[in-house]
């Protein structure tokens, strides 16, 4: 009898072990390309992430180090995170941290967008109504276009890979650099597709529309020096009357309540709850230790306004007080364990009182994207906050319009152009201009967009000689502990310094990148 049990057991084991489907183990953890992207909601979920973490490594530190420190608006800490002082001094090299992270982040936007575009294109043939797929493709192409625009600004001539799957399977991981002008043309193609296929009204607040694409094109044309087209596209946005200036400039940058307001054409979307890589980290770099550290653990004040910027404001310009914290600044709604009745910015430190006072090299901290320690209901999660990063706002459209109207002329008194720039100035508390010069616009842009990652590119597009002149006149020094100015002047020595070098790792991997750039469009 016992044998029969054993035999049955053995037979049972033998038979069960030979089940045909034993090795078929489709993922239980996640869906796959085959069974996903079947609804508009699923595609929207995928495009939504393109407003977020793919940009993070650029937003994190490069945003300021490249967009502002090179431009002379901010000083970075002498700290390995910023590669020392290389951006203050224009001594960056191909092995610098933020050179690599800018490159990586911007190309990851390209890669994620291209991968999604491909997936959605493949899906088109399998569905009856591809409208939701086309909307998704248009949004992804918008993002890819903007990413290449950023790349062309920061690095000049860059490679273009828009079929990552083909690239990965080619086995030849090398590519030439393409001329900056061709990269910008490529950007325009993406934006044109977006302009033609994006909805006129955003399905959700904060998503880009066809006018976001038009506005972005205006900016690209401006950088290309194609003022006629820049004016047309900016005019298109102005004439639509869908956008206007947000009345409370300060709130726009210190409260997530103002996210995706009437002025915002395109903004990166951040969510504090997602933490590192999903939330906006800027306040940890700009805000002070006294304000933030007790609650969030962070708050380094590692990028601060330059003395040069602080002193460049017109006394009437309210944007200075809305953008910068200086001695005596007070916010009642920012409280923490050391400031139970509101935060006062105090630079009178005598040492040992860092928990209460802040005494840095310019005695000032940038306020844009600083939302406080969460005491006023702002969602704060370690270094992360909810506040969106403005990439294109209506003020920019107005200033592009004015600049495009001016074009290559010495000055203009065009009514529409004056209306545009004076609209921006009125909010800032400044008197109207009656005549506009190139320098007026540059100064206006410096103060309107201070700490928004754009100023270096505004200088850069003036050309090497003009940039050299602007940079060499800037005070890039700081005050020592006793208040004595340690002056620091920087002179550009080579047009090479206008663009970041290609990061070392890719240079090693792809020797063709060292060759002179070639045309993309034959």
């Amino acid at each position, binding site marked *: 009898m016992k044998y029969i049990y054993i035999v049955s057991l053995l037979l049972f084991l033998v038979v069960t072990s030979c089940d045909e489907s034993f090795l078929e183990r489709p993922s239980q953890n996640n869906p796959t390309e085959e069974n*996903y992207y079947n609804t508009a909601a699923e595609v929207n979920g995928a495009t939504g*992430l393109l407003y977020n973490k793919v940009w993070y490594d650029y937003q994190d530190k490069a945003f300021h180090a490249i967009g502002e420190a090179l431009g002379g608006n901010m000083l970075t800490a002498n700290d390995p995170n910023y590669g020392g002082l290389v951006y203050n001094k224009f*001594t960056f090299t191909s092995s610098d941290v933020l050179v690599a992270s800018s490159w990586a982040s911007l190309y990851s936007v390209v890669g994620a967008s291209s991968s999604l575009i491909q997936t959605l294109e493949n899906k088109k043939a399998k569905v009856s109504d591809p409208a939701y797929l086309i909307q998704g493709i248009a949004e992804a192409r918008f993002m890819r276009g903007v990413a290449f625009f950023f790349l062309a600004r920061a690095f000049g001539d860059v490679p273009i890979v828009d079929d990552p799957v083909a690239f990965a399977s080619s086995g030849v991981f090398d590519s030439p650099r393409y001329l900056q002008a061709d990269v910008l043309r490529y950007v325009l193609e993406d934006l044109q597709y977006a302009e033609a296929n994006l909805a006129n009204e955003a399905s959700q607040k904060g998503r880009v529309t066809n006018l976001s694409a038009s506005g972005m094109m205006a900016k690209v044309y401006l950088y290309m020096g194609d003022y006629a087209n820049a004016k047309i596209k900016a005019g298109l946005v102005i004439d639509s009357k869908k956008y206007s200036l947000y009345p409370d400039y300060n709130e726009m940058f210190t409260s997530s309540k103002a996210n995706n307001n009437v002025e915002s054409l395109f903004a990166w979307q951040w969510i504090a709850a997602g933490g590192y890589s999903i939330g906006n980290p800027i306040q940890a770099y700009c805000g002070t230790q006294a304000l933030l550290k007790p609650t969030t653990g962070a708050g380094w004040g590692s990028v601060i306004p330059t003395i040069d910027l602080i002193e460049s404001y017109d006394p009437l310009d309210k944007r200075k007080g809305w953008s910068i914290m200086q001695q005596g600044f007070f916010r009642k709604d920012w409280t923490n364990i050391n400031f139970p009745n509101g935060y006062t910015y105090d630079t009178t430190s*005598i040492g040992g009182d860092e928990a209460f006072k802040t005494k840095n090299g310019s005695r000032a901290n940038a306020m844009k994207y600083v939302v406080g320690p969460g005491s006023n209901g702002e969602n704060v999660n370690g270094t992360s906050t909810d506040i969106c990063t403005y990439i294109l706002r209506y003020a920019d459209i107005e200033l592009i319009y004015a600049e495009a109207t001016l074009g290559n002329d010495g000055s203009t008194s065009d009514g529409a152009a004056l209306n545009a720039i004076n609209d921006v100035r009125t909010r800032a508390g400044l008197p109207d201009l009656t005549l506009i010069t190139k320098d007026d616009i540059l100064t206006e842009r410096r103060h309107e967009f201070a700490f928004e990652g754009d100023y270096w590119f505004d200088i850069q597009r003036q050309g090497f000689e003009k940039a050299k002149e602007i940079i060499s006149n800037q005070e890039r020094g700081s005050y020592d502990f006793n208040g004595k100015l340690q002056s620091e002047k920087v002179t550009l020595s080579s047009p090479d310094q206008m663009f970041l070098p290609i990061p070392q790792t890719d240079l*090693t991997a792809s020797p063709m990148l060292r060759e002179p750039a070639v045309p993309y469009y034959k």
Partner: protein
Amino acid sequence: MLKQIYRSLCIASVFFLLSHTFAFSQSRLVTGKITDETGEALPGVNVIKKGTTVGTSSDVNGTFSIEADNDDILVVSFIGYAPREIAVLNQTSLAITLKEDVSTLQEVVVIGYGSVKKTDVTSSISSVSEKDIKNLPVAGIDQALQGKVAGVTITSNGGQPGGGISINVRGITSVNGNQPLYVVDGVILNGSRSSIAQDQLGGMAGQNVQSPLAAINPNDIESIDVLKDASAQAIYGARGANGVVLIKTKSGKAGEPKITYDVYYGIQQLRKKLSLMDLKQYAGYQNSLVPEIRAAGNSLDTLAEFKNPAVLGRGTDWQDEIFQQGSIQNHQLSFSGGKDKTTYYTSFNYYKNEGIVIGSNFERFNIKLGIDQQVKPWLKTGVNLNVSKSNQKITLTDGSDAVISLAVYNSPAAPVRGLDGQFASVSNIGGSNFGNPNNPVALATMRNVRAIQYKAFGSLYTDINFLKSFTFRNEVNYDFNLGQNSAFQPLVQNTTTGATILSPSKLVEDRTTALFWALKNYLTFDRTFGKHYVNVVAGHESTLSNFDQITTSRQNLTNNLQSINAGSATNQTISGGKYLTAYESYFARALYSFNSRYSISGSIRRDGSSSFGPSKKWGVFSAVSAGWTLSEEEFIKNISVINHLKLRAGIGSVGNSNTANQNNAYVTNVSLVAISPFGNGAQNFNVGNPNLQWESVVTKNLGIDATVLNGIIDFSVDVYQKVSTKMLVQAKLPVYSGLNSGNTYNPVQPPVTNAGKMTNTGIDISLTTNNISKGSLTWKTNFIFTHYKNVLNDNGGVPQPAYREYGNAIQVTNSPSGQAVGSFYGLKTDGLFRTQGELDAFGSANSNNQLAVGPQGIYLGDIRFKDINGDGVINSLDLTNIGSPIPKFTYGMTNTVSFKSFDLSILITGSYGAKILNYTKRLTEGLYNSYLNQSTDVLNRYTAENPNATIPRYNQWNDNNRRLSDRYVESGSYLRIQNVSLGYNIPRALLNKTKFTSARVYVSAQNLKTFTKYSGYDPEIGAYNNNVFNMNIDDGHYPNPRTFTIGGNFVF
């Protein structure tokens, strides 16, 4: 097809079994006496009826009695003596003499799915027995093997109690993980264990891959066999590519019940402190910088407090603050025995290790139970159960902001605590801030990062013998793991100064369930026909791993309670993962040996894995090997000095289907993202590769075994070539492809492809000499030597770089085709700029370097780099290979001396030719910030007054001198007295008055003395998180401790 054949085979075997009739005969009592060659009675000798587990053991007088009949054969065995087989026939009283065993040839070697006599081995296998690893104060078996196995390079990844170990069997097999397959009593163990990376609490991740074997009790081990070449591994085809470590644990033996108690207790110390400046030296150093900094146009004043360094105290010694005296203890209690048809072994173990860095410890409880039952003369079953709980507390190490790094550059002017006893943050002295805001003592002691693991593994088996030569085995293996990882940080504030020390309060809880089971059925035919010996094994195996994980975190914990419930729901996170992996295999092996002279063995295995797409699931792996025992040939037999001589040769292939961090890499997976703009998000996780297939490793092996001079010298030499192709690598595409896993936040992972080729060629030598064996004095030496050369012939198209620091900024290794994997990558130094002429020459040649000549640029005393590509400019094109972390050879030597009741063993291990990247030196000799502490070596830095110095000048203006270069690459060669152990066996005469059968007490020292030129804490570094691209990087690494223990082994 195969399945059907297999199925009919299985069924047929069962019918065979049924049709067989079993004969039984009457037993009677047989008695005997066992003596050695001098006539001395031998107690404790095992006497077992062959083919059964029925047996007994001899008593103090060497006598025994056993029920047996005329057909029975008694197997008489005792450690150190050659076993004998005695036919009972019609005898009732036996006189048995055992001879001391001069060779190890009679030993049985465990191979996959069976065992084989050492004489019949045709492949490369190294064996280690219990006595070789006994009493070593280590948490895991892996570490105990250090210096004992030729061909296996074992490096501790640091002194973290329960921490990781890098084991490379014959070089570096693959770019994606090299941990061998561990098989304990037939159970394949899950190969990874890690704690929560500490970047979740802020800062850097640190080393978080821990030793998977730390959960297993080394005291239960009977023997370890390492399968080194493909002909041995092929039977584990699919999973054997990185080598196979077969571990056999203790089981009960027939005979008197035995109670054993093993205990040791020890203390652990830091082997060496770095020579860093104390407050006096530091104040003097800071004063000396004033003119240098002023000369460059910046301001720095001599602090009033530092004006007279002689009156200052020593300040804070941060090394003393973070290092402590550790302790280690181990208790093992076991019961074993067997009577009639049942044998059993059970043990209880407790192990605890308090580390030498504050805040680190490891604790483990183990219970083992094994029972074997001879149900019928033809049927044997058994169960084997191992249960353990391990609890590890991890201190953050290996990172520039981790505890050790923070401590080495923290200023001696900064206190650990304020006058009120609370942790201090930065301290202001005369208007300048000293000290790191991250207090390393607070970081180490206030954070609570733990890895707790509950593990149960073992097997159930049934052996059925039929038709004399056949055995059918059915075995079920299981390995269940429950992981309970947590990372906790309280909010710590100094209420006096208002300074925040640690913030915010946060708790991360991680629970994993890893369940694994395997079902094996195999048939063994084992028979000797005259001079012919045949052993054939064929079978089927299926395994399934089920991994399930959930991670959650909350912040702002009320009252700093370490509880998820105490946290705020705002910003809470939750995530999980669920993966199933299945393997199915058919395997067969045949061994034939003629007259113990010629033997040949072949094996084949067909494996299927769920990790590959429909058309690529299956892989076939095979091997063949042969052995020729020359010493059995007439022309050698007459050479009296040669006792044994054998040649072996083999070739075979094995595979790997481990696709690193991608589970279903053959399809494009979509990740769902809960926290995302505009509601639930999703993203393509990877680029699917439907053509993905098995990685392949082909090994050729040639070996020679010899015993000469009457067993005085016993050696074994193997040479091999191992070629890995079709490596499963995640394509490392250039960053501009938009697909690059080297960047943390890149959402789309590049495809996993079969790419590249790597070759390891090497030689393993093992030599044992019995130097003295005279009366009560014996002296034996065992020497092992391991050499391999690694060449990454083809890296799959793109060099594989590794980075340090935040933002992945600093590339530290590079692995281009044609070089050894993981070589350090940087500039070559060419001395210092010492004359204005040299500076001027540099200036004109380096218009593109962007560093102008001058006090704030490149200046006298700065490092000059070599222009490797000769283009006149120093830039990234001049980065080159600046040293390999792979040793030219490693070795181990064990000397065992016993004299009367004393035994002494000395283990020396060493490594020669490896380079270490002393990344810590970038901090301690960085000379870039006057507020950081430095090595005392910088007191001899370059200054105008000291123009012949080799250490560069102080330079806070640019990072020229800190660029990654051979300045930070040092020799990692060392010779270490790894273990010295002196034991005393309490003589039998004394024991007779007690209940003990035997008792031994000993003292031992581990890591006693290290001879090295390496300037850091410890030249034994290992691989950061077991990554082959991150070997020998000392970035605030946890040094291995020196341990002194005292212990005893008692048998009742």
